[in-house]
């Protein structure tokens, strides 16, 4: 009798099935409708690649997509470098002056509303008289996403056995060598996951980018956002489907990478 408690019950299965349907159905419907031949978003006119074709002829959208990809790649890379350094400093640096302030600054952007982050960075760029465009958006995204990278790398680093490094140093490595040869390969899956998270967050952001970009350098989400406010267009379905596909590929690559490197339980878990 007692055995049956907590096993699969019809209630549990229903809750799970409904939950998953809720999470995935809207996305599936979006993807299906991106292949719709009809100009009307809601009328099914047969399968077609028409709207993908349309996107590749839309200069403004292509420019925005290219801008977004560049910003995401550059900011994710800088963020991964800085975030990993921050994680090393926090986990291995023990106490140093201003440590509390440092970790506070790294946690605050995770919870701070994007409107505030965006507004404050814009005020800085205006005060510095910086020309707004690619670099200001990239800096803004780096600041936000490095905090996520720090969290991901920090948790992996904290769970790592420190005696491995000490053994390497006993065998004659200096601390930097020990870190590069022993620790770095072990935390690489977390670093890769951090880069991916930073990349997708940057690719997704519309609020901070709106504050920090200049005229003529809109990112893809900004363009999508302004189109969506005017109503649904089939071309947007196609763009969204491509973004989803790109992210899906990244997730598969990341989980394969972490499986190959033998890190258990590290696969693309951002929280």
């Amino acid at each position, binding site marked *: 009798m007692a055995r049956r408690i907590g096993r699969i019950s019809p209630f549990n299965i229903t809750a*799970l099935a409904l*939950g998953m349907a809720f999470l995935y159905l809207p996305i599936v419907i979006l993807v299906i409708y991106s292949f719709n031949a009809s100009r009307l978003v809601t009328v099914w006119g047969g399968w077609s690649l028409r709207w993908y074709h349309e996107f590749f002829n839309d200069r403004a959208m292509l420019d925005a997509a290219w801008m977004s990809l560049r910003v995401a790649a550059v900011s994710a890379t800088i963020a991964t470098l800085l975030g990993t350094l921050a994680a*090393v400093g926090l986990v291995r640096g023990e106490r140093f002056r201003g440590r509390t302030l440092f970790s506070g600054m790294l946690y605050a952007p995770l919870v701070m509303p994007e409107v505030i982050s965006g507004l*404050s960075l814009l005020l800085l760029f205006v005060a510095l008289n910086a020309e707004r465009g690619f670099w200001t958006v990239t800096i803004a995204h780096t600041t936000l996403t490095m905090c996520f990278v720090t969290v991901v790398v920090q948790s992996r680093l904290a769970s790592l056995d420190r005696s491995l490094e000490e053994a390497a140093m006993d065998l004659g490595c200096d601390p930097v060598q020990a870190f590069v040869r022993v620790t770095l390969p072990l935390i690489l899956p977390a670093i890769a996951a951090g880069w991916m998270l930073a990349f997708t967050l940057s690719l997704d952001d519309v609020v901070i980018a709106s504050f920090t970009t200049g005229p003529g350098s809109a990112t893809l989400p900004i363009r999508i956002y302004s189109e969506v406010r005017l109503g649904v267009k089939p071309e947007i379905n196609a763009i969204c489907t491509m973004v989803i596909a790109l992210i899906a590929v990244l997730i598969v690559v990341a989980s394969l990478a972490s499986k190959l490197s033998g890190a258990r339980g590290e696969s693309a878990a951002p929280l």
Partner: protein
Amino acid sequence: MSTRRIFAHPARYAAIAPYLWMVLFFLVPFGFVLKISLSQTAIAQPPYVPVFDFSEGWTAIKAAFAQLSFDNFRLLISDSLYISSYLRSVVVAVTSTLILLLIGYPIAYGMARLPLRWQPIAMMLVIVPFWTSFLIRIYAWINILQHDGLLNKILLALHLVSSPVVWLSTDSAMYLGIVYSYLPFMILPLYATLSKMDTSLLEAASDLGSSPLQAFWLVTFPLSLPGVGAGALLCFIPIIGEFVIPDLLAGSGSMMIGQTLWLEFFTNKDWPVAAAAAVALLVLLVPPLLLYDRLQRRTLEGAK
């Protein structure tokens, strides 16, 4: 022993670059927000009275401090637009968090009771939408909810309604969008506490004569409270400052504080008032943040 000491130093140096970065791009800009929220509005580019003029030295700095004004905050308090958007943010965040708990709990519970080898897959399935663009997921709902969208088509085909229902630009659409976007944030902490729970406690409860429902209410639920708290705060805090979802899905009636800030900044171009709204929004976030911090600490201590 000495190896530890040697190692500590290079690791500390690692923090220098990110430290400087965060000071320059997080702390300093934040100071600007504070300062500008205390400045007077000016018709200029940028539209506020300049912060400091260092070329004039100390007297200029003293003069700048003498010029600080709380006018913008007074305006925030006296104008009903700000008060109502402030209140609306709280109402929307509380309501959405409650709905999220109601929907998220059964899903997390179902996940935690799956056979062990299925659990990582279920968790992956919950996380994937978190990676998928936020904007795209909201857009997907606009597709469904619009006037001649799928939802109305199905309802009409089933003869549940006789004419298309207006879904877009309503509060229900906004709540749906918020719940949809934040569901993973609610499920994951709940699942984390529920899956760690010792099921023998439930067996003990049933041996002592309680029905499954009683066992749930008297054993499972109280034990999952840390997860409930973490999930609720993880959702509540970002929803307070939400901008995109209410802008795309809610009607044009009343705004949340994030929207007011945006409007003040981009449409009215009143930077000082926008900065003051930002400060007010931050103040609103302090209690839930402190609560979350305390909860995390207690959970960590409990784990030890």
